[in-house]
């Protein structure tokens, strides 16, 4: 822990240790995010990837102090430039948010209020954090919109959100997020609602933020393709726990966790031979209430065996210089082979009883 150290270039920008987020339900606490740890360096893009319900958005919301549902319990540590974010009072958080840490969301339509122009809203954000006249703020807004690739930025600033296309709204939201030059940008599924040709442009923009604005980015996505093309490092979440983490190139070339392997294999290839059947993962991720005591992926894993089933869940085990997987296989000396290319078949799991609310109908497909 670096709780007492001052920010210095050697320190990671963000150091998250054992973050847990639990929500009360039916008289007990349900852990939604369990022991998530990662670091984010200056000017780095880290991809938080997982399926729906994996806890990736909850992790981001917890970092931003945006979870205020009654009874929620957040433990662990998240140091931003040495300052603890977990448990920070709202007043101090407000000083950080926007200026130091900014967030963009999947749906820019709901992130803007429909009753003011885009420019008015970006001006307001700038003036909330810096002593600038309206005129100076607008000049900054127009400049930012231009930098984000918005055509005719001065006129666009006078438009209302509904008058812009999805791609332009997302550019405007990124402009608003960057208006106070935050050190950290948290992007929660920023391109999911966009079409692929527009998505490619926004991802290019996000990649360039490192050099153009010196920003670090925490990119939350469900799309392995987006991660591969955008992120320096990757953190794979499964059912609220870290399955694997490491440099993106390593994770994609030599996945250390069977979930990562199976997830990559189940994506239909656009090129190369077309498989007769896709190597699908049987079953569905467990609901947090029914999460197994051992490895959460165990019931769907083709390599599941006795040590996987017992509590506690497998700890992260180093499978490369900076790559680690929460799996017993590498610890047992039988790591996964390098990623199989097309034609690889994930066979049916040994265990056929996923803990979903229903007994494994999807196991047969």
């Amino acid at each position, binding site marked *: 822990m670096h709780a007492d150290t001052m920010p210095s270039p050697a320190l990671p920008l963000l150091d998250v240790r054992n973050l847990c987020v639990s929500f009360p339900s039916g008289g007990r606490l349900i852990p939604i995010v369990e022991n998530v740890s990662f670091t984010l360096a200056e000017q780095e893009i880290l991809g938080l990837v997982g*399926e*729906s319900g994996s806890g990736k958005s909850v992790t981001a919301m917890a970092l931003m102090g945006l979870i205020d549902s009654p009874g929620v319990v957040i433990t662990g540590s998240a140091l931003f430039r040495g300052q603890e974010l977990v448990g920070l009072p709202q007043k101090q958080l407000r000083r950080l948010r926007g200026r130091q840490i900014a967030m963009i969301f999947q749906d820019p339509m709901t992130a803007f209020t429909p009753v003011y122009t885009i420019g008015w809203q970006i001006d307001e954000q700038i003036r909330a954090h810096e002593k600038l006249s309206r005129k100076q703020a607008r000049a900054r807004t127009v400049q930012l919109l231009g930098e984000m690739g918005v*055509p005719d930025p001065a006129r666009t600033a006078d438009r209302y959100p509904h008058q812009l*296309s*999805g*791609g*332009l709204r997302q550019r405007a939201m990124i402009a608003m997020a960057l208006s106070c030059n935050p050190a950290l940008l948290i992007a929660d599924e920023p391109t999911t609602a966009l*079409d*692929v*040709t*527009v*998505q*490619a*442009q926004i*991802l*290019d923009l996000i*990649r360039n933020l490192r050099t153009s604005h010196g920003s670090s980015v925490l990119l939350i996505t*469900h*799309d*392995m*393709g*987006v*991660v*591969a*093309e*955008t992120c320096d490092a990757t953190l794979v979440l499964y059912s609220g726990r870290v399955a694997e983490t490491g440099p*993106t*190139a390593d994770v*994609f*070339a030599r996945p250390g966790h069977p979930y990562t392997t*199976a*997830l*990559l294999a*189940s*994506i*239909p*290839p*656009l*090129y190369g031979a*077309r*498989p007769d*059947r*896709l*190597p*699908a*993962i*049987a079953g*569905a*991720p467990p609901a947090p209430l029914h999460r197994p005591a051992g490895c959460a992926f165990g019931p*769907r894993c083709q390599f599941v065996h006795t040590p996987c089933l017992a509590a506690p869940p497998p700890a992260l085990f180093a499978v490369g210089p900076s790559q680690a997987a929460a799996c017993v296989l590498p610890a047992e000396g039988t790591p996964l082979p390098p990623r199989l290319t097309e034609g690889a078949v994930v066979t049916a799991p040994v265990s056929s009883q996923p803990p*979903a*609310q*229903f*007994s494994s*109908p*999807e196991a*047969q*497909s």
Partner: protein
Amino acid sequence: MTGSPSSPADQSSADPVAQTAHGPSGHANAKTMLRPTDTATAPLLSVRDLSKTYDLPRGQSLKAVDGISLDVMPGEVLGLVGESGCGKSTLGRCLLRLTDATSGQILFEGQDITRLSERALRPLRQRMQMVFQDSYASLNPRRRIGDLLAEPLKVHPGPDGRKRTPAVITGRLHDLMELVSLPVTALDRYPHEFSGGQRQRINIARALALSPRLVVADEPVSALDVSVQAQIVNLFADLQAQLGLTYVFVAHDLAVVRQISTRVAVMYLGAIVEIGETDDVLHHPAHPYTAALTQAVPRPEVGALRHPPLRGDIPSPVARPSGCRFHTRCPAVEDRCRTEEPTLQPVRSGHDVACHFPLAAN
């Protein structure tokens, strides 16, 4: 468009439909070529110059589908791809008369269904079904799965023209559950008790209840997680092989469409800009838009950074660009493209493109 995908060699010259375009030049002769020439390769579904226009306030109008002609052959899977607002979903709905087209013709099994009354259409509905994207919204939350699936079997008479008996219906429900790999106990449960993937299996079972020949699937796996998506794509493929189904598979995900489709039609602002055999279109695109689409898809491989293939957003379909509808974003635009609309023309056997300057096959 093209004839049977299984016999691509004899289409381009023999089949006059191959010359049919969605532009004004296609109007004149569209009517003369409606009769299938050969029953063995007669299309299951034919669309001629189909348009769907929505009237907007202030005299504006939106052409969601703009003069589309295409044939769907029995046993094939036609993938309809394109970005949001390209009209792929509207076209899918028009095919089944869930939305009424403004003009043009739809022929199902050779019969013109464009202006059939609902009553006359009902017997045909048994043979053409739809699967929707939102697996939850398409199932009544207050009814058990068994009741939901039995409804079409009660509404429509059996093959003998008489009402199905309860025993027949129960038997059919059990068969359907087996088809989509769900346990029979699922019939007694409610939609909320199932995961997204399981609900989509139920929707597929309902679509198959009356043994249709044609299934139009509108983004059936888009709302699912990747690991579950693969199961459902496999299920669609298995059912197609097992039951000899014909699909029109609407999706924005090129990789998913490639996995399932025999042929692919690429749509842009209401029109088909390219159509042909799946890998021929996706790997050797002749239209710059198809090329850009395939390049823009993020692939799960770490490699050299690729630059965004296109600039700007899709224009509003209300103010469709003149000439070639893609010219505002086309990296290879020429003067001719701004004024003259290209029509679908064959570039290779079984592969048509609407571009004045089609890309060479690489």
